[in-house]
């Protein structure tokens, strides 16, 4: 009902003019029509206001819901999904595609309803004024829709070409900048510039081709409504001249004709919105259609009041994808509750994979991993994750405060817990150097931590959870040996009664563990205590020898050594 006010205006104008032209005796009505017009416009404003806020508001609410749904879903997707999907692609779906979808809902729906209503009513009123003139004047109008449809498809194709080429251009720039060392070393700058120039020129040509077609839309609309106006002026003018139509009727008729132009254009516009919006929707639904990780699908039902921390692996073999080679082969290992297990081995031997399976970041085959005698998938996911403190190889910290980062896994910890954790991780002295202490922001707006500080923050983050199981995956690689030894010394007290898995390249980290396993190509090749393994004179022994040498080298002072 929104446009009732707007539609009344030409009618009132018509009546007003006819009244004035009828003669001076109607002077009393002079104020009546203008007042009615303003009133009608007022009504229109009020309706439009509600109409706009509700429809657009509605589309915003849907967008909000939809975005929440997708992000909630993303949180539970298997990690593998994120290694195969580019962040840029996901981001583009969540932003650009979401906008296209919302525009289809908001602008699209509004335009459709608005156009349908305006066309129907305007036509009706025009027919009331003069059916014959309506028929004639409408001759050029449908061609607006037809033309927009025709050009619309071409515009769509060209628009897609432009977008595609833009992505080519972006890829080229991205590769060029990422590989600038090679480009400069091989003196390919000019060559690359030429190539870029070609790409940019082609982009410009594609854009101009789009402009060539897109440029028609507005002028065509203007010319067709102009043609309709010409017909009305010609035929209507004759009728007024011959007295079969009043001047007011002609002007009113003009008014309605003008009102038809926009909805005709809108139909073509909506078709474009719909095309883009539905394509975007498909891309968004693709995310929602990806199944969530197994752990979230079937929640574990075992009732566990407290996890003690016994870990048992039974003939565990694992591959990342069905066609990938085995990363772990036949691992059988029991770590009694409260003991430490060290894992050593070369890069790529499967150490990280092994510990990633424990918090179900990847899904182990059934019947292979047990905690406290309960199979992993039987444990409720939250219970499992609460029970494990994990410090991974590549530390990810959020651009929040140090406090937020440490308390990440345990929002309910007291500030005493926080300080104890920082102390244990040998982080306190670093934090005291920052002006805002624990409230120091990390990231570009705040401080940038060194690799060692990052690892120690991540360690504090794991400790503050107070977990029965602690997993340290090469957690001290950027920390110097002295600090590492201090940390380990302090941690001993904390780790008493907890199960710990220590992965390291350094023998010094694992040598005190209750048992040590040496992984090679996904298999356990040696196992035992430090002394037992040394006595074996195998892989572990050679690793130990190398590290003694490394320490010796590191110990060389800057002035020592000689030139041969």
């Amino acid at each position: 009902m929104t446009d009732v006010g707007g539609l009344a205006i030409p009618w009132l104008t018509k009546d007003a003019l006819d009244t004035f032209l009828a003669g001076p005796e109607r002077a009393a009505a002079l104020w009546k029509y203008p007042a009615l017009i303003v009133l009608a416009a007022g009504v229109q404003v009020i309706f439009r206001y509600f109409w706009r806020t509700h429809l657009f508001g509605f589309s915003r609410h849907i967008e909000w819901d939809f975005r929440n749904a997708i992000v909630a879903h993303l949180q539970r997707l298997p990690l593998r999904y994120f290694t195969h999907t580019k962040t840029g692609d996901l981001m583009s779906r969540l932003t650009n595609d979401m906008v296209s979808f919302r525009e289809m809902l908001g602008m699209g729906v509004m335009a459709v309803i608005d156009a349908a209503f305006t066309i129907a009513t305007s036509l009706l009123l025009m027919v009331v004024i003069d059916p014959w003139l309506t028929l004639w004047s409408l001759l050029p109008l449908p061609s607006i829709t037809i033309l927009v449809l025709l050009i619309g498809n071409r515009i769509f194709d060209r628009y897609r070409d432009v977008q595609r080429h833009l992505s080519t251009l972006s890829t080229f720039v991205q590769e060029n900048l990422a590989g600038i060392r090679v480009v400069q070393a091989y003196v390919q700058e000019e060559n690359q510039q030429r190539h870029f120039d070609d790409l940019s020129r082609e982009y410009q040509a594609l854009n101009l081709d789009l402009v060539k077609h897109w440029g028609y839309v507005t002028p065509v609309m203007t010319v067709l409504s102009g043609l309709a106006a010409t017909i009305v002026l010609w035929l209507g003018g004759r009728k007024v001249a011959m007295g079969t139509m009043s001047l007011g009727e002609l002007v009113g008729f003009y008014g309605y004709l003008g009102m038809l132009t926009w909805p005709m254009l809108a139909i073509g516009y909506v078709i474009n919105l719909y095309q883009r919006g539905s394509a975007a929707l498909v891309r968004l639904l693709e995310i929602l259609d990806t199944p969530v990780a197994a752990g979230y699908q079937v929640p574990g039902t075992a009732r566990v009041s407290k996890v003690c921390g016994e870990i048992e692996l039974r003939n565990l073999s694992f591959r990342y994808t069905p066609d990938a080679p085995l990363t772990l082969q036949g691992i059988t290992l029991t770590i009694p509750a409260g003991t430490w297990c060290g894992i050593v081995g070369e890069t790529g031997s499967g150490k990280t994979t092994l510990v990633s399976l424990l918090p179900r970041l990847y899904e182990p085959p059934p019947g292979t991993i047990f905690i406290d005698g309960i199979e992993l998938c039987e444990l409720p996911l939250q219970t499992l994750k609460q029970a494990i403190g994990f410090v991974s190889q590549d530390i990810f910290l959020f651009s929040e405060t140090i406090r937020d980062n440490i308390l990440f896994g345990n929002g309910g910890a007291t500030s005493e817990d926080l300080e104890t954790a920082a102390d244990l991780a040998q982080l306190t002295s670093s934090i005291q150097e920052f002006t805002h202490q624990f409230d120091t922001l990390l990231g570009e707006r705040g401080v940038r931590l060194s690799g060692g500080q990052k690892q120690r923050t991540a360690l504090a983050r794991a400790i503050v959870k107070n977990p029965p199981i602690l997993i340290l995956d090469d957690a001290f690689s950027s920390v110097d040996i002295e600090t590492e030894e201090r940390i380990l010394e302090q941690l001993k007290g904390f780790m008493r009664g907890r199960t710990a898995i220590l992965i390291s390249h350094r023998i010094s980290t694992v040598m005190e563990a209750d048992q040590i396993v040496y992984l090679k190509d996904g298999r356990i090749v040696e196992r035992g205590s430090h002394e037992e393994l040394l006595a074996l004179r195998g892989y572990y022994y050679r690793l130990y020898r190398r590290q003694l040498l490394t320490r010796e080298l590191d110990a060389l002072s800057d002035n020592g050594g000689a030139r041969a």
Partner: protein
Amino acid sequence: MKDAQAHQDEELLGKAYDGQLIRQLLRYVAPYRLWVVASLLLLFLTTGMQLLGPYITKVAIDTYIAARDLHGLNVAVVAYLITVLVGFVSQYAQSYTMQYTGQRAMHDLRTQLFTHLQRQDLAFFDKNPVGRLMTRVINDIETLNELFGSGVIALLGDLLTLVGVAVAMLALDWRLALISFVTFPFMLRATTAYRKRARDTYRDSRRILARMNAYLQESISGMATVQTFGQEARHFNRFKEINTQHRDALLKSIQYNAVFFPSIELFSAISVGLVLWAGGVMILDERVLPGVVVAFVQYVHRLFTPIRDLAEKYNILQAAMASSERVFKLLDVQESLVEPATPTHPVRLRGEIEFKDVWLSYTAGEPVLREISFRVAPGEKVALVGATGAGKTSIISALCRFYDVERGSIRIDGIDVREWDKRTLRQQLGLVLQDVFLFSGDIARNISLGDPAVAEERIAEAARRVHAHDFIERLPEGFRAVVEERGSTLSQGERQLLSFARALAFDRPILILDEATSSVDTATELLIQDALKTLLLGRTALIIAHRLSTIQFVDRIIVLHKGRIREEGTHQELLAHGGIYSRLYELQYQPLA
């Protein structure tokens, strides 16, 4: 973290108009000034045609319809038709010429920016993440493009229409005109109020959107951490908060729009009402003809459209100013490696390298190379050996003049590298990096780097000589096989061979090689060793060696430790000496099993 924050920088908005930036932008439009002039003339024509329409209607009503002059009416109708058709052509031509200018100017700016980036040294790229530079070259230029597409000229057109309509109304009947302008001050007030609020909410929503994007990007990158700690729910709630803020900011702008745009219609209706009332009085007094009133009703509508559009274009203008400021700032960055005033252009080098007391630091006060002095005779092969962080890569970077040395000098054929023309210097050096960078495109392009100077036969010949030919032939499309993103379809060893082929195809007198550390199977290892011998034949070579076999056929070994040269000699001499090298040797080159 870095990328997430960068998102926020991108979204800061400044003024909508900045004279200095506009002047800088105009420099890029200047070469196409004839097109601009043509576009402006066409704009005048279009506006004129649009203004003529209502006037012809007026003449038709008052002169011909009133006098029942059907012939006269026909003439008026034809005149009207002509304005419609001329308007169509000129409007189309105008929009095309303007877009043409914009596209050309932006192409110029884009290529200039790209060229500028090609000439920056590596220190620049260390400071500026690729993502940010990409945004400059791609997105910011796109935003500027919009300025031409729908911004500046359309804005001029709106202003022109506004003035034209007002003048036409005054000319037709100044009393009625003034009466229809009565609503103007109120409307201006409303527009200013709207613009201010719209700008604030626009800014707010952009800021929140940037925050949301940053948060999303961080969530996606840190998903493993979120899932490991079982923080999915809490993390999602944080996102929901930002999402809600975003929604609310937009709902606010919907409110403003929902008040402003319909109220423009109200003002327009009031003006129509006033015209009808006053016009009615004047018709009755016979002071004005009915056609004039009809024309006025039409003019009033045309008066209000541009005002509405002007308010809408404000945001485009603002975003474009912010983009141009960032682009020009980037163009202002000077090259930090100074080209010599009279550069030396070598013909063909003998290939002698000399480091004399070289110091280098990336950050002031933290030298990575100290007192480095050594000499490599033409044709000699020297290996650089040392633990991680000893300074091996820095020596290579300094030699290629990716960075300038802090103290001392590096001479090639007795001439300081700073005296050489940078490009011609690099044309003498064949660099093979351990992290083989592959470009998207086919195998051939990855060998030739798309340099037309490297002929097809030379590509094939180079590939054959370094044994890359075998695996290339096995690919379904051979040399035309497309390399997947970052070469993920090729094995480490194959990528090594490909980079050898690249170096051989470019045929440089000095070869600088950073050997790959990654282990490959024995068969490939043999191929690589053999290929390396071919590659080194007759060339001076500086090698960061990770393989025992490589170590054993070089002429001399330089042992680096913590940025200094600690030992120098042949393999045998150094082993006998029992210093760092002998330990390193045990550590690195003695096979584990």
